[in-house]
């Protein structure tokens, strides 16, 4: 396509058009995934609880997410009387932008990534820490006790678990020797097991638990505990502002699944001993492997939600600070020692 456009346009504009097209494709497909993640979640949880899930709108209820979106779009937009209006308007936007801009550094398959930057992993951390502002500010600006308590809970939870998540990925950085997400995937393909989840099993465990806490999912969904806090930090939001929080949360889940797929499960590649055994798998496009891993991780999110009860808040903090952070520090020390050991032997 670049050759076709290059025939009658200067190269600088061709590049711009290609980048804009990539962004449009990623956002469109990403949001479609978010919409159908809600449908899929309701189906999965329905069947796990011996119900059928949505089935009225369209064949098998497939149009349900679209009906939900239309409904949210036409709902009345209610703003509490004493709300801090500028921050009340701003916080869902901050939350959603922080979630969706993380998509820009994720490599979906070989050489398809919007921004191939050297600090990809750090960019993801930066964006996920920015999301905490949307939560705290929405809780504060709503001028409601439920929202405020939910916001405080969520922010302290996100900040605590961000530390363990960052430390759990340091092992991956050490093994790959890079912060660039595409390089991490390529390093994994060179590695004998093909996936860092095998040697980095401690890091993978810490990452998975932290990912659940980061996205406010069960069993760590205390900020949104309905029985105590109505809906947590977005209690006072309605209409499309609520939808932005909802979209941001599901985008966050997809981002977490993508990070685990890229950093621990091999991204768009599959282990080489598998392709040596079954050579025809080489012809399967990489995006399918990537999506398969992301879908499995999303299913795991739903499965845990349908299975486990909620933790108490002090238990949540104790797990984060007393179990996960020491474990991830231990993982860093072990990985570094093993790496130096192997370098000494070679």
């Amino acid at each position, binding site marked *: 396509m670049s050759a076709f456009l290059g025939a009658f346009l200067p190269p600088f504009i061709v590049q711009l058009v290609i980048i804009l097209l990539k962004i449009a494709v990623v956002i469109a497909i990403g949001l479609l995934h978010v919409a159908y993640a809600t449908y899929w979640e309701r189906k999965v949880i329905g069947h796990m609880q011996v119900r059928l899930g949505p089935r009225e709108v369209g064949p098998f209820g497939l149009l349900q997410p679209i009906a939900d979106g239309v409904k949210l779009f036409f709902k009345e937009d209610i703003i509490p009387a004493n709300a*801090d209006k*500028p*921050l009340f308007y*701003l916080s869902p936007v901050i939350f959603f932008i922080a979630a969706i801009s993380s998509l820009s550094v994720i490599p979906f398959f070989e050489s398809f990534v919007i921004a191939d*930057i*050297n*600090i990809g992993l*750090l*960019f993801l*951390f*930066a964006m996920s*820490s*920015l999301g*905490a*502002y949307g939560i*705290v*500010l929405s809780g*504060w600006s709503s001028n409601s006790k439920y929202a*405020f308590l939910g916001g*405080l809970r969520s*922010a*302290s939870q996100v*900040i605590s678990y*961000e530390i363990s998540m*960052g430390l759990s990925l340091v092992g991956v950085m050490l093994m790959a020797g*890079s*912060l*660039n997400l595409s390089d991490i995937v390529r390093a994994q393909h060179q590695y004998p097991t093909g996936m860092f989840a095998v040697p980095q099993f401690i890091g993978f465990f810490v990452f998975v638990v932290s990912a659940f806490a980061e996205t406010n999912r069960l069993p760590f969904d205390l900020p949104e505990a309905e029985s105590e806090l109505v809906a947590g930090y977005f209690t006072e939001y309605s209409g499309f502002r609520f939808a932005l929080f909802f979209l941001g949360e599901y985008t966050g889940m997809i981002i977490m699944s993508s990070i685990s797929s890229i950093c621990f499960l091999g991204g768009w590649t599959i282990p080489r001993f598998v392709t040596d055994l079954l050579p025809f798998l080489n012809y399967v496009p990489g995006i399918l492997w990537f999506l398969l891993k992301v879908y499995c991780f999303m299913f795991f999110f739903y499965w845990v939600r349908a299975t486990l009860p909620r933790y108490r808040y002090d238990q949540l903090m104790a797990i984060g600070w007393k179990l996960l952070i020491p474990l991830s520090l231990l993982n860093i020390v072990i990985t570094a020692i093993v790496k130096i050991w192997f370098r000494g032997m070679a």
Partner: protein
Amino acid sequence: MISQLFFGYFAAVIIILSLLVVTRKNPVHSVMWMLLMFFHIAGMYLFLNAEFIAAIQVIVYAGAILVLFLFVVLLLNLREELQTNRFIGSWPAGLVIAASLLLSMIAALRSFVPGPSGPYTIALIEKETHTRVLGQVLYTEYLFPFEIASLILLVAIIGAIVLAKKKVRS
């Protein structure tokens, strides 16, 4: 030309945002302007090819320290806070000191000589990636100052724990 425009934009916006931070009546709004200022500082680092520092600026300052500021500010009684004056009575004295500092800096600027450029040129940093170069310099040439800084931080952590810990009755 474009690089000078970028620098001018960042410098001007950082100054305006800093003024907004200190003059807002509502402390929560001050914190938000400060967040925007931190992002502009990160942009400035990116512009200097220091991508790692830019990311750390956002993660540490915007993502951790400023969120803790926000926590403290949220727990203040805002109704009282909005009544009090922004500045204490002796602010003209502070202004005089700051202005004289600025003047002496401008006077000193004339005798400014750029230091000799070391082996780390922009081409090398772009080839080796900024993170790797920074790590190598930090852990070889500047290992001793780095360890001293870590020790000072450790002392601060232990001090905070000692202060915060309740006295156990024996």
